């Protein structure tokens, strides 16, 4: 699930497990930094990996799922529903941008979209902490503010990476689905109520 410059191919088999894990963790951490401080760089695109999106998606889905097994129709999404929305949403957006004539590869686009969920995962953590306090309009306002800021951050981060790959007269057509995707995730975060 990674692409790398294979310089020392044969020697990675003999290294300790700790080395392997730390190398991958460092790569993921470096990409997290790129998302948090978005600027025009190719790191996310060149060395794409899907570990980061997987970690983020699982974290988000675990935090968003409804707690007890109450009635089927009430409550927020199940783990599987969040997972499906994130991954199928990302795949659909990638297909859309490729069909419109973008020159980004399939996995690069999945990588960017997945990593840019990081601000929204942070928003989910903050919302969960805020919900521990007493409910009320101030509680809601704080959560709304945090979610809106993180939503804008996600959009800015992903367009910084994805915008250049589209032909100029179709940029808006490719960016709108990204907006819809993060809007739906933000909505799920905002309407989360603990049981």
């Amino acid at each position: 699930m990674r692409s790398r410059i294979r310089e020392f191919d044969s020697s990675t088999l003999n290294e300790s497990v700790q080395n392997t894990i730390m190398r991958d963790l460092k790569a993921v951490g470096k990409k997290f930094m790129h998302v948090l401080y978005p600027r025009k760089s190719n790191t996310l695109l060149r060395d794409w990996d899907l570990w980061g999106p997987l970690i983020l998606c699982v974290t988000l889905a675990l935090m968003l799922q409804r707690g007890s097994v109450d009635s089927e129709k009430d409550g927020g999404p199940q783990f599987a529903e969040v997972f499906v929305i994130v991954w199928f949403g990302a795949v659909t957006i990638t297909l859309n941008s490729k069909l419109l004539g973008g020159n980004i590869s399939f996995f690069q686009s999945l990588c960017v979209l997945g990593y840019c969920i990081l601000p929204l995962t942070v928003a989910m953590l903050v919302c969960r902490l805020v919900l521990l306090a007493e409910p009320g309009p101030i509680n809601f306002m704080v959560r709304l503010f945090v979610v809106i800021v993180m939503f804008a951050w996600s959009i800015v981060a992903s367009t910084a990476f994805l915008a250049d790959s589209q032909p100029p007269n179709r940029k808006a057509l490719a960016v709108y689905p990204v907006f819809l995707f993060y809007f739906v995730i933000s909505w799920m975060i905002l309407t989360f109520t603990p049981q």
Partner: protein
Amino acid sequence: MAAADELAFHEFEEATNLLAQTPNEATTRGDQLVPQQHVAVAMDSGGSYGAGNEVEESDKTALLQEEKQQPGFWTFSYYQSFFDVDTSQVLDRIKGSLLPRPGHNFVRHHLRNRPDLYGPFWICATLAFVLAVTGNLTLVLAQRRDPSIHYSPQFHKVTVAGTAIYCYAWLVPLALWGFLQWRKGVRERMGPYTFLETVCVYGYSLFVFIPTVVLWLIPVPWLQWLSGALALALSATGLVFTLWPVVREDTRLAAVLLLSVVVLLHALLATGCKFYFFQPLPLEPAAPPHQATSQPPTVLLSPPPPRSAAA
């Protein structure tokens, strides 16, 4: 092709109208095409072509330019041909669906026989999510007014909305296209639309419901019904104006029946969505039903069990 790129198509109102009425005839632009090809062929071949061969050559090139390259359906570029639209074109098609005019056929004027799948797909997706989100918001606002209503973020509504909208926007055009193909023999002048053009018409006609659904957040009943009726009128008018030229030559009965079924299905979708997503009834079985309005006459969507208050 390089030649086609140089001879860019310019927009003229009369030409557009002429094209809309008689799409299969060549306009003057096509005639201007031929002499240029004529000259190019003559220059390339030197003096070896006779007069008859020159005419044949220009005819063939003109014919080849009209033929479209059709890659197989298993290749990626086949599907890419359905997304060959620019931002301005999509916006123009949306505007065309919002303001139907009697003389302007949506397919001929706005699609120009180049349907796209971007519009229908993303308009349906947006409408499904907006329905779920605003339905949820209505419940939140209703709970603020009356704390006895039990609120929960009903995520299953997203699934229901998505399924309903996508089924409507793809199965109804399929049925319509099948019906028009079946009645093809009766028509002389105008051929039926292709399946993709029908899907396109339906997809873009659903756009007007997106702002309407957002307006339905305002809990004033007469305003909700007014905006719903307005949106339905605009949308159905667009559909009727598009279908009328095709259906006009059929028997009177078939034409009227088809158009009324189309409008009726559209109305059913609108009322079904209104009742299913915007009914602020309590969800606990123990609590008595609050504000019991009329029973939802949903055809497409079945109401959840606790709401069978009429029993």
